């Protein structure tokens, strides 16, 4: 196991939450929480002093790009050829709105996907050393990164909080 890290494995949400609080109290800030499902309580404590996730920014930019592309493509290509059909004007906006709308959604969605990958640091080629397969079943985990000198303290804190298992 890599030097400078302590992992605590928990069976329950409340113990995990308690552990996070205690760690914070003792000045541990740099730790990763593993959970099989997203849990309100855990997120609540974690979000306390964090900015809102920037994913929505991706979506917004993507969507706007899509809409602009939509109108751009339709109007430009219509003018390029200038063909009259059914007595309608060459640049007929109402139908073009549909294209713009669809492209807006499309690019919006794709850029949101991009956000997950970029912000979530995915794809990750190999498991992080502190990862444990049980985290996708029913166990929660807290991996604290700290210097060896503080490791024991962290470990103690985790087990006091109720970790079933603490690893260096």
């Amino acid at each position: 196991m890599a030097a400078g890290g302590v992992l605590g494995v928990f069976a329950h949400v409340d113990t995990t939450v308690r552990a996070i609080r205690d760690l914070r109290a003792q000045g541990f800030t740099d730790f990763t929480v593993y959970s099989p499902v997203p849990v309100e309580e855990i997120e609540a404590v974690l979000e306390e002093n964090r900015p809102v996730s920037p994913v929505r920014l991706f979506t917004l930019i993507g969507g706007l790009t899509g809409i602009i592309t939509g109108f751009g493509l339709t109007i430009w290509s219509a003018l390029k050829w200038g063909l009259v059909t059914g007595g309608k004007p060459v640049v007929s906006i109402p139908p073009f709105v549909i294209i713009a709308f669809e492209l807006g959604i499309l690019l919006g969605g794709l850029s949101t996907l991009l956000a997950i990958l970029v912000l979530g640091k995915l794809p990750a080629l190999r498991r992080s050393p502190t990862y444990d397969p049980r985290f996708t079943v029913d166990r929660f985990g807290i991996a604290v990164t700290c210097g060896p000198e503080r490791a024991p303290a962290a470990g103690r804190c985790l087990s006091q909080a109720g970790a079933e298992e603490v690893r260096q």
Partner: protein
Amino acid sequence: MKIVGSSAGAVAAAGCGQAPERILPYVIPPDNLIPGVASWFSTVCRECPAGCGVIARNREGRVVKLEGNPDHPVNRGALCIRGQAALQGLYNPDRLRGPMRQDASGALKPVKWEEAEKLLVERLTGLVKQGKGKRIVVMSQLESGNLGRLIESWAQALGARRPIFYEPFNYEAIHHASRLVFGRDAIPHYALEEANVILSFGADFLESWLSPVEHARAFTRMHAFKHGKAGTFIHVEPRLSLTAANADEWVRNAPGTEELLALAILKVILNEGLQAPGVDVALLRNVAMPVDLEAAAGQSGVSVETIKHIARTFAKAKPGIAVGGGVAVTSTLAVETQRAIHLLNYAAGNVGRTVRFGPDSAFVKATPHAIVGLLTQLMAQGEIDVLLLIHANPLFALPPKWGFAEALKKVPLLVSFSNQPDETTEQAHLILPDLHSLESWGDFSPREGVVGLMQPTMAPVFDSRAVGDVLLSVGRQVLGSPAGKGPFRWETFAEYLKEQWRGIAREYAPSMPFDQFWEEALRRGGVWKDVATAPVQARSAPVFPIQGKPASVEGDPQGLTLLVYPSQRFYDGRGANKPWLQEAPDTMTQVTWDSWIEVPAEVAKKLGIRQGDLVKVTSPHGAIELPAYVSESLHPGAVAIPIGQGHTAYGRYAKDRGANPLTLLPGGAGLSFLSVKVTLTKTGGRRPLAIAQATHDQDDREIAQHVGLGAARELELRGAVPEKASHPSMYPDLKYPEYRWGMAVDLDACTGCQACVIACKAENNVPVVGKEQVAYGRDMHWLRLERWQEGKPEHPENLFLPMFCQHCEIAPCEPVCPVFAAYHTEEGLNAQIYNRCVGTRYCNNNCPYKVRRFNWWDYSSPASSSYAFPDPLPLQLNPDVTVRQLGVMEKCTMCVQRIVAGKDAARDEKRPVRDGEVQTACQQTCPTQAIAFGNLKDPSSRVAKLSRSPRGYHVLEELGTRPAVTYLKKVTREHGKA
């Protein structure tokens, strides 16, 4: 495409080598045969003896389109459906490739020309030497020109019998009657256009009678609404024929009562003293008085009131005209009927005015059937050793009961000059295929004062020889006369013809040097002059006995009288091998690719016959099976079958299709199409007919509209009504920089003759799809001729409407195309880009007129099983028009290729296109000039004027598609609702 090469080469040779003094094009001399530029050659249409003048459009050495010769006095630029289809005789896939002889096994094997001629020469020489010339007979179709003369002199020189000019429809009753009444053995010229009232006894003059194109034109000129005036047309016939459907008043009489009616009408005229001054009343009284009006009314099923009303209308017309034809005058009373009709004309003072002796019809030269009957007997008795057939097909055109087939077996040598494998030719021992008329020299005189000149319009497609050439060389060899001497001194028929024309030159243009005259004649397609009307007097003696009873018919008295009538599409059957004609719907029934028996609804109900049920038709002379067409309008005492189908040979398109009604007719002296009663029995089988039109009921959609004569007059006086509040649009109106092409169709002029349909097919390379596909709504006609009917089903008001792409200004088909294959050009055309089409077919869903056509199968590639152009048909394809491929949508383009050509010509002269300069194919061929095309932006153009007509309307106007095609309402006569 081997043939293209060879024939193009050949014509290049023809064009350059022999041409300059021999073949002269209509417009440009042929020695500059420029690729991409058409040369026009003028000649004569030989699809029937009407002798219309045609000009053939020759591109790169092959004829691609026929058009009427605008100068020709008979057809004035128009052609009928059969004339348009003549090309498919020229390029028929089943046309004989070369001479053939029957070998020991009885099978036909190709031979060399020399060998074939030698055979004939030997046989003839033998007979001539033995002085048995009388054992030689020539049987030809009617040849009223110099070929006919050659045949006669040939027969004479060999001591053969007088040649027979055989025409199934030879109208002999008319000239017999003329002889009886006026002492002149002639068929007069009927000047319909100058009559105010036409009274027709079954004369289908818009379909086949005498000269249909000429009659159609004349009819429209007297009948179509013009400046508040319009003539009246009363038609007497048991069946609602196309001609009857065009009548203002169709009088349905019992079959065979035409003479009776004519005499009854005559009697009324006399009773009411309506006869013209100076007529021999005594004579007329002798004939008419014995007729009992009540009895006549009873037997004919025409009320006395109607008879009186007809008599008055007719007699007061000043002048009117009475004509008789169709089955009416091929009954056992044929001559009597024509005689009565002559007398009607005489009584009303029409003779010399609308009925003109002098410019007599060439039909008089056709041999009477009695003589054909005699020949049959002679053959049966083994009196004939050599029978030479020139484009005559007696085995199909004569009722089997004549025993011609059996008699033929007694003839040791049957020589056929036909270039189609027809029934008789299949029996021939020797076949010397003649050139097609479009490849031949010749001339034809449809009537006194008109001689049409024929010249080759292209080099022969196959290894055939002009019958004239063969006769000359055979004659020379038989007589052993040295070259340049004797009765056959001419090397070729062309030389013979030219020499004969020196005589014609003396007659027509004495002052003109011959070469100039000849050139002129070749350019114009012949010579013509006015012929003075010959005065005739009705003979007072002898007083001919009048029948005063219906024509007698043999067969089961409980049976139904059989009406066998000439087909508008196939004439006497010679059209049946042309796929265009097979696929063009019969206008009245809209049936394609088959023949049928028209059964009165009452009878059908009684016998439980549904449309498409196979019915066995039995007469005392034979029986045939045909699918039934249930008719509301046919006389309940009759059934009707068209002539023309039921070939047992005659190529892939004609063979084993439908049945030949002549099988049911008796043998004997005369050919009478109304002489038997038949009985019907359901076979239980079904053969659904391929009917193009789903229903004749407009379902109140006002597609074809009409207006009463009175109302039309009012409109005319009020002048053009202000533009109807057109449908508001969110968008600004379209701008048309130069032209806006449009069309106007006058429904009052359209007679439903279908010529436009075939002209369009020929011009635009429209494929033929076959019976199954037509039956399943997959026909490809760009232009279809619809028949709509209103009023009582047994006596409907008929409206004919040519429907094609309406080139809407706000076209529903355009915006739905995902790839811009359909769009609007700045000349107002609704364009369709075949190469761009991906075949979503959305455009046709959205087309309210359903005029778009989809290539369901691969009609254009020779590899495909549905290939529509077997060799040599591709030679006919118009090089200016794409042949569409599998999976694309196509439709009427308003002949855009012609528009482009017209604009190019105009640009060369730095001027805009003149009105009438560009003609669409349909417009060009229309015998009644019902269609106008031109630039709508030019208010003085014909189309613009017509579009402003108070009778003008747009089909489905309420949809706001703003079509570029305006229809003019048909004008109906109030009293037409009989």
